[in-house]
């Protein structure tokens, strides 16, 4: 139901089990991380298809690559920085360069491991993984699209990185939403400004769009759930038709969604842009809602930043 609050990890785990029921090649690899990734039920259901490795993320990426060469579809979920920043070279060489059909899932991504501090935040994962040729990056913004993203990535042949958060998140979409990898979703149409949101803060962008509409601003709101390949047609249409773009992400401004959008616009149709995200500093620690508020990611802040952007 729309607006229900659901646990993203539980949703993710249920979707992987569904996918594994349909596809016998799906196997799950754990770096002492399955239970914390919503996959606690997987080993009981598929004991022969669950491999525990303990805390050795770089090694698990290599094992996943090798398993994929034998026709398996490995799913490896763990805390986001430990499957991206830590084993970056394994991700690049063993999955990207070898083009292996492995699905890496970073959970508790962004700042959602709020009070655990900067070692456990993952606000650089998109920046580093998007430099790897051939890797699909998916950052769904609600439980319905998390589920659809899992099935889409299992059906897609090639290396994927899926990121999900940890606090409960509101259902934004109906069950029958048309979710396709590489195609952003226009959630509402408008003419004054394009807001492009992604992942854990999509719901904040949705609320911000409502506030802006109340302030008389006509908003085109786009959910950019696939960060690579990026939906260039949708971005260029927003640039041409509206001319003002605000990006919203729980990630460093360096290298994330805003950077990716500007790489397209600045070369093909330069427009004014505002990037809302985390600046050039490590984030602090504390309750999630307050923490993202330190980076202007609450709806009222997004609304205010957008209004200022539109008037300057």
């Amino acid at each position, binding site marked *: 139901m729309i607006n229900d609050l659901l646990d993203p990890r539980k949703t993710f785990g249920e979707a992987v089990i569904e996918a594994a029921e349909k596809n016998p090649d799906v*196997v799950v690899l754990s770096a002492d991380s399955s239970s914390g990734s919503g996959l606690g039920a997987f080993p009981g259901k598929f004991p*022969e298809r669950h*491999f525990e*490795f*303990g805390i*050795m993320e*770089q*090694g*698990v*990426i*290599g*094992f*996943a*690559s*090798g*398993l*994929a*060469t*034998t*026709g*398996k579809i*490995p799913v490896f979920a763990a805390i986001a920085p430990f499957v991206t920043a830590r084993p970056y*070279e*394994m991700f690049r*060489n*063993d999955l990207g*360069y*070898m*083009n292996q059909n492995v699905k890496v899932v970073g959970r508790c991504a962004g700042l959602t491991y709020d009070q655990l501090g900067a070692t456990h935040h993952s606000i650089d994962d998109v920046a580093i993984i998007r430099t790897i040729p051939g890797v699909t990056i998916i950052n769904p913004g609600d439980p319905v699209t998390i589920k659809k993203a899992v099935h889409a990535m299992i059906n897609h042949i090639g290396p994927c990185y899926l990121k999900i958060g940890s606090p409960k998140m509101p259902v934004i979409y109906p069950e029958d939403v048309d979710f396709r990898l590489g195609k952003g979703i226009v959630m509402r149409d408008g003419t004054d400004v394009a807001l492009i949101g992604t992942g854990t803060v999509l719901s904040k962008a949705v609320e911000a769009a409502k506030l802006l509409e109340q302030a008389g601003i006509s908003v085109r709101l786009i959910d950019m759930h696939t960060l690579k390949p990026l939906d260039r047609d949708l971005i260029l249409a927003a640039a041409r038709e509206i001319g003002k773009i605000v990006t919203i992400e729980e990630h460093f401004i360096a290298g994330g969604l805003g950077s990716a959008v500007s790489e397209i616009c600045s070369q093909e149709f330069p427009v004014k842009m505002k990037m809302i995200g985390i600046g050039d500093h490590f984030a602090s620690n504390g309750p999630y809602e307050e923490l993202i508020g330190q980076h202007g990611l609450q709806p009222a802040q997004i609304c205010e930043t957008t209004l200022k952007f539109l008037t300057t």
Partner: protein
Amino acid sequence: MNNKELLELEKSALEIRRNILRMVRDGKSGHIGGALSSAEIVAALYFNLLNIDPKNPRWIDRDRFVLSAGHKCLVLYAALAERGFFDKKILDTYTDLDSKIPGHPNMHKLPGVETNTGALGHGLSIAGGMAMGLKMNKSKARVYVLMGDGELAEGSNWEAASAASMHHLDNLLVFVDRNKLQISGPTIKVMSYEPLDERWRSFGWSVRIIDGHDLTTIVRSVKESPFEKGKPSVIIADTLKSKGFSFAEGKVDYHYWKANPEEVARADRDLNIIGEKLKVKSENIADDK
């Protein structure tokens, strides 16, 4: 293995060394030290032990060979060419733009190459995953890995070693090419791994130490593996760096060599002497019959 089979393998090892020289002889540079030290291991694998089909390099039940020490690629290219995976003319393209035989192997460019290695400490994990997948598929295929001894300082290897024993991957066999030299000097002085056999054993592996240039022992050891049921096996192969090029043997300076005409001529002479010896041996075997 009878004398005739041994002779054939010795000839293969010689041709591998000739192919290694062929790739770099025209003033090119390459990691010859570790390629030459592992020539017997690779000859034994590709010309006796591996269950492979050059005409069907992606055959699902093939044995896999993972060159973890990707910089030893010259020995892999030399063996694959000799075994008929690709036209030997490709050996003359080493260092060319878009060559199918780059300075570290690329599985997308050349048939028979299983992995893209080069960064050290990756091969064992990938091979472990292959071994795991083959077991799941109930395949009889086995996975062989060639590692350098300098490479063993990479911590990722020991993650993989733990996991391979924990998951009882007895279809996995590692060769450590213990040539005892790396680019900065003697490996035990750069970062000691000794006692190497005890180290592997403590990680749950079954270990043998052999002479890595003794083809009979290499073949017999592999045929006797897994050395213990339920455990991965490692063969620590004691070798001589740059074996076969007399001027370079055991010298750290030849880890990476830029070929020059004088040394190429000496290498040619060295290999021709081996060739002559094998010819005599061949005639003697024929006379015995």
